């Protein structure tokens, strides 16, 4: 008769129990199966991220998903189809107000003249906007720029005709004469300015109000810690290349911007591109500058009914993916 199997020792039993206790954590630490997907339209401030990918400075496991507009990026991150997205800060606040718990992990750029309102031949100054048709993308940024423009022009929304225009049909609408003014940004703004459009208003009048950021979903923060750090490090490497090697970077960015690489850096006019140190100042510390900007944007958005109530800012910032100084 076979002897009964020996009972496990107390030490071995404890080891098994300890293993069971930590199993969920171990599952959580497992390498994610799907890549870290990042939605982004081709705004110049986001392009260093694409340059990093093209140059092989991003590891496998990070997927940049080109979108046609900020609205498409918002839809994708809202539905969880991507785990991160390049958005403006006001777009992040709007999604958070709709119960999408996003956090900001990086500031790509601060608009300082890059967002513009342009007028056709007869619209040479802000006062000329009265009674005119103004094209604008249906987005938080579009609404914010329009609201600020009307305030500066001492006009109300009733004084103008707002023409909702998706980004991809803005230039066509301008050329067809369907609008008298347009809320826009690069590359459309540069094209229209070269054709003789008049600059009526731009984001220099709104310092630190329009920030482009990397927004992340909570799943990304939990499961993609390493990939997020690599993505942000790659962005800063490409940014350094842009700053120290501008001729080369310009021609390489033209792959995404279109047109002549010798003119590509023109698209970065009006943008402040904060490096890692500047990002730490914006996102880290006891009083990050981004929070102050977010409070101000929230106030503006509530005032223009772009937010139902002041934004809740707890958990808005995740500075822990920035490179250490």
């Amino acid at each position, binding site marked *: 008769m076979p002897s009964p199997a020996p009972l496990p020792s107390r030490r071995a039993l404890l080891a098994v129990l300890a293993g069971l206790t930590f199993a969920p954590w171990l599952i959580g630490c497992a390498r994610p199966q799907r890549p870290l997907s990042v939605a982004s339209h081709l705004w110049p401030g986001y392009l260093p991220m694409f340059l990093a990918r093209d140059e092989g400075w991003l590891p496998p496991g990070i997927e940049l998903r080109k979108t046609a507009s900020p609205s498409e990026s918002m839809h994708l991150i809202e539905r969880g189809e991507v785990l991160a997205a390049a958005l403006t800060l006001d777009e992040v606040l709007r999604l958070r107000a709709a119960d999408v718990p996003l956090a900001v992990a990086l500031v790509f750029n601060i608009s300082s003249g890059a967002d513009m309102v342009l007028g056709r031949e007869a619209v040479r100054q802000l006062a000329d906007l009265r009674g005119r048709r103004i094209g604008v993308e249906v987005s938080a940024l579009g609404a914010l720029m329009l609201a600020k423009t009307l305030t500066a022009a001492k006009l109300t929304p009733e004084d103008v005709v707002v023409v909702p225009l998706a980004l991809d049909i803005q230039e066509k609408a301008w050329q067809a004469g369907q609008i008298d003014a347009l809320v826009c940004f690069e590359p459309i703004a540069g094209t229209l300015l070269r054709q003789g459009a008049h600059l009526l208003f731009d984001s220099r009048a709104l310092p630190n109000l329009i920030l482009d950021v990397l927004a992340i979903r909570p799943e990304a923060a939990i499961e993609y810690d390493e990939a997020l750090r690599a993505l942000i490090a790659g962005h800063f490497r490409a940014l350094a290349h842009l700053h*120290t*090697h501008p*001729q*080369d970077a310009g*021609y*390489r960015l*033209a792959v995404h911007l279109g*047109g002549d*690489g*010798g003119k590509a850096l023109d698209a970065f006019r009006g943008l402040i591109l904060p490096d890692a140190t500047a990002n730490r100042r914006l996102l880290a510390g006891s009083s990050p500058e981004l929070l102050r900007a977010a409070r101000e944007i929230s106030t503006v958005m509530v005032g223009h009914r772009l937010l139902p109530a002041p934004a809740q800012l707890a958990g808005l910032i995740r500075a822990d993916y920035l490179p250490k100084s």
Partner: protein
Amino acid sequence: MIRRLFGLALFLAAFVSLAAEAPLTIGVLTHRPTEVVTARWQPLTVYLSRALGGREVRLKPAGYAELTELLDRQAIDFALTNPSHFIALRQRNPLTGALATMIVHDGDHSVNAYGGAIIVRRERADIRRLADLSDKRIVAVAPSSLGGYLAQRKELHEKGIALPRALHFVGEPQDKVVEAVLRGEADAGFVRSGVIEAMSRSGLLDGERLRVINAQNLPGFPHAVSTRLYPEWPFFALPHVEEDVVRRVTAALLLLADDPVFRSTLDRRGFGVAADCLPVENLLRSLCVCRPSKRRRRSHSPTSGCVTSPCW
């Protein structure tokens, strides 16, 4: 006594005036044959002479060694050479910074940057990628050439590919590199971007016989290139040139594009605002390349294991 002093002052004034009107000489690197370089830049001397109120301006085409020696002797007043050579010269001589940067016009494109091209004969199917070069015979122009050696070396370095051992410098002009590859004396050659196109345009080369490997996708850049781009050649002055002359020459260079007579005379060349040489300094630093200083002080870098002069 007073009459003597007055006479001496008159003599000195006349001497200074004569010296101020002495001809000015521009040294230009002969990366292409001397006759090509002379034909290209001679009109610039006429233009600058006019801008300086008729003062004579001369051209001195020279190779790397001769140009370096001319600067050491302060035998020229201005120079135009590649940025890595300029940086090396600046270690030996107290030069001005770049006064202006050369621009190359090609079709609808005007570029103030260039890179290196790695050329092989079209039928060489065994050389497709950078890694294929490691056991091949390479020709390049000179160790100081940015577009004709250093840019390609940097590209190999970044990709972790060792510089081929069978590397031979043939000296200026770069046409010799092209000819060596065509004759089969070398498997691949390093030349600056634009040389192939210029030789093809002037009938010196059937461009179809060559292929550029590791070709970069750079929209709007008019020449085939295998490497990163770097700022074009700087134009600079030696320290003995009067500040007023430097100022007037710089202004004239920058206004050349507006001159209806001269803007199209320089074989598709012009000048723009001086570009920062930082990308080239970074390249030299990363490759531990630096010319020895006059005093030949040398230090051994423990981190890289290479010998450099203490220039950075």
